[in-house]
């Protein structure tokens, strides 16, 4: 599966930028909100009025990446979102409590459905293709990638729009903060979409050589999963040039990373992508965007990696969280 186009809205200047994260900044404060573009030239104003932030961000990145790929009618639209449309959910809940179940209006309710982003993209494109939405916490994006990969094997030559979106709201920040999720680093959010196909286009970013998801694995199972992923691609651990890690040194989840990062791939250079996008469950979509863009440009934005690798051929996007979700995504230069 090849990533032929990619688009990201994140807390960094990442959307439709001439230069690749040249002015990236370390996130400060407790909440990192996305840098949002002016949507008027991407989404028709008549349609935008009902869209909450996650829908705007999702639709904008979807449209942007389709445009890059020159694709107007994808054969599948697949979206991952852990939390879904939180803003609309919160609005409807609040009014329901305040108005004691009376005088409620439909817009927030219908836009709160988890499949709204994928549905709105289909509606804008008048696209009748396969349309699916995965909502498995930190595996929402990985489930989407697995679906896309399977779809390409079933339908070689297909062009697939696949991505993920999650938004941070006042309510979700307050609640997740009480769970202790943002003690060591800021809360984040973002939307990233990709166009993938079974063959690389002229401007292809990277090849996705495999995705593995594991839930509460033993160290042995993690080791096996990495070994199998590498073996499938005829690689050994020393050939991984860079790990794009969801780890944040000192964070609550840091010990979850122990096996892969400190034992199996200890000497491999790392980029901690959540330093750029903040903590959110579908952050691996940003990690994948970052990795794919580095592979395409063969350049790492200055200061992002302590010991940049000299060769950039095979990258591993690795995530582990406190709930026990682990994922491994192998990206290779085209």
């Amino acid at each position, binding site marked *: 599966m090849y990533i032929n186009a990619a688009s990201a809205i994140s807390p960094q200047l990442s959307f439709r930028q001439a230069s690749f994260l040249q002015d990236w900044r370390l996130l400060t404060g407790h909440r990192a909100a996305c840098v949002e573009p002016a949507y008027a030239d991407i989404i028709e104003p008549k349609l935008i009025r009902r869209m909450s932030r996650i829908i705007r961000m999702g639709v904008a990145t979807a449209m942007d990446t389709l445009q890059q790929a020159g694709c107007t009618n994808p054969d599948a639209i697949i979206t991952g979102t852990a939390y879904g449309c939180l803003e609309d959910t919160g609005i*409807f809940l609040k009014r329901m409590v305040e108005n004691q179940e009376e005088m409620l209006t439909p817009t927030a309710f219908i836009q709160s459905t988890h499949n709204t982003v994928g549905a*709105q993209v289909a509606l804008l494109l008048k696209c*009748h293709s396969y349309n699916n939405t995965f*909502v498995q916490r930190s595996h929402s994006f990985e489930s989407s990638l697995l679906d896309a990969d399977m779809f390409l094997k079933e339908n070689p030559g297909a062009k697939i729009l696949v991505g993920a979106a999650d938004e941070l709201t006042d309510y979700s920040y307050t609640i997740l903060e009480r769970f202790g999720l943002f003690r060591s680093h800021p809360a984040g959010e973002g939307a990233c979409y990709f166009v993938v196909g079974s063959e690389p286009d002229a401007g292809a970013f990277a090849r996705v050589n495999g995705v593995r998801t594991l839930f509460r694995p033993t160290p042995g199972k993690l080791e096996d999963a990495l070994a199998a992923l590498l073996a499938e691609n005829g690689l050994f651990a020393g050939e991984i040039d860079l790990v794009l890690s969801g780890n944040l040194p000192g964070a609550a989840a840091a010990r979850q990373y122990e096996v892969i990062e400190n034992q199996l791939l200890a000497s491999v250079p790392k980029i901690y992508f959540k330093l750029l996008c903040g903590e959110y469950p579908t952050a691996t979509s940003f990690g994948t965007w970052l990795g794919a863009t580095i592979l395409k440009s063969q350049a790492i934005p200055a200061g992002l990696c302590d010991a940049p690798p000299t060769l950039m051929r095979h990258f591993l996007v690795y995530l582990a969280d406190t709930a026990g979700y682990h994922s491994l995504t192998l990206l290779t230069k085209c």
Partner: protein
Amino acid sequence: MAAPVYIAGLGAVSAIGDNVQENISSLKEGRAGLGPVRYLRTRHAEMFPVGEVKATNEELAIRCGWTGTNSRTAMLGYLAAKEALEDAGLSLHGHAGDEAGRSAGSGMTEGWMAGELACRVGLISATSVGGMDLTEDFFPAFMANPKAGKLSQVYQHECGAITEKMALELGVSDFVTTISTACSSSANAIMMGARMIRSGLLDVVVAGGTDALSRFTLNGFNTLMILDSQLCQPFDKGRRGLNLGEGAGFVVLVSEQVAKALGQSMDVVLSGYCNANDAHHQTASSPEGIGSYTAMKGAMKMAGLEPAEIGYINLHGTGTQNNDASESTAIQRIFGDAYPRMSSTKSFTGHTLAACGGIEAVYTVVSLRQQCLFPGLRIEVPVIDKPGVMVQVFEEDADIRHIISNSFGFGGNCSSLIFSLV
């Protein structure tokens, strides 16, 4: 020809029964589960009939053997998925929750077995409300004071957290995911499961969906003015809207190799499926039924079936003006005047949202096995007025080999599944 995917186990909980057998008895006896709200706390309790699972959360927790705060969605899902796994006759060795496995020690094979065959087992569930039933209890206190409200009430808010809890309790760990495409969710979960088996990623998939009633959805559907204040009449010209229901339905999908290892007679396969999008409106279906037409056509093409070979359609049939008009138009476009038999079992269960595709898949498989047709209730003037098309009373000795089960949802998500006798 793609590898066959067999149905090895069934599980269902709904307003008309706590297990598959009870559900089927109700369908046969024409006993709907719709009525005034008894368990959900809502201001609209007198206003709208619903299809509730006849148990309190405490009773469900006892049935699950669970303690602590758990979403009704997770409990309903667990009960149906567990029934399906047990029905399939798979056995689990060495699971932390399994006394036999634990005492047998480390020498024993770990994981799921079909007879002597070790299997990779996945859980692909679906839900649209997730733990909203608890979140809406949390919110009043939280809105009054951001530091208030019990966090245990939002721990399972995410749809994925529901499936995670189910997977942990069931002992399924090779692959776990959740699909949320509104009312087509569990049809898509079953489709995803079949595809993962066909592509060799898994040997067994427990696939389906679960949704509990919540004030959020009841009020949401009320804002759309599509709730019927009387008992719903799907596919009747005088239909007024839908009744919401709740429940869970799961099927156990297995590869041919697992089917053989289980040693049962494997008589029903999932022969076709298609997911399409109506791309017409966020909530309303297109008048010409583009999405539902494409989904049914695509599923028939995959199964290699001509219209005349379809014996029965388990309709999405919610009972709203819009859905039933759109769905019947799509059916007419495919079948012309040569309609298959059809009915909407939502007249028994209510519309169980993300669970309906799973529950109705269970009914469909039983229809094929027992060669019987379950009715749609309360039809006075049928939308399709050709006599003998709508199934209005329970019928035995039906001669059917292929059934379409339709599930359509918000966001234009339309999915059709075809189950066939081998």
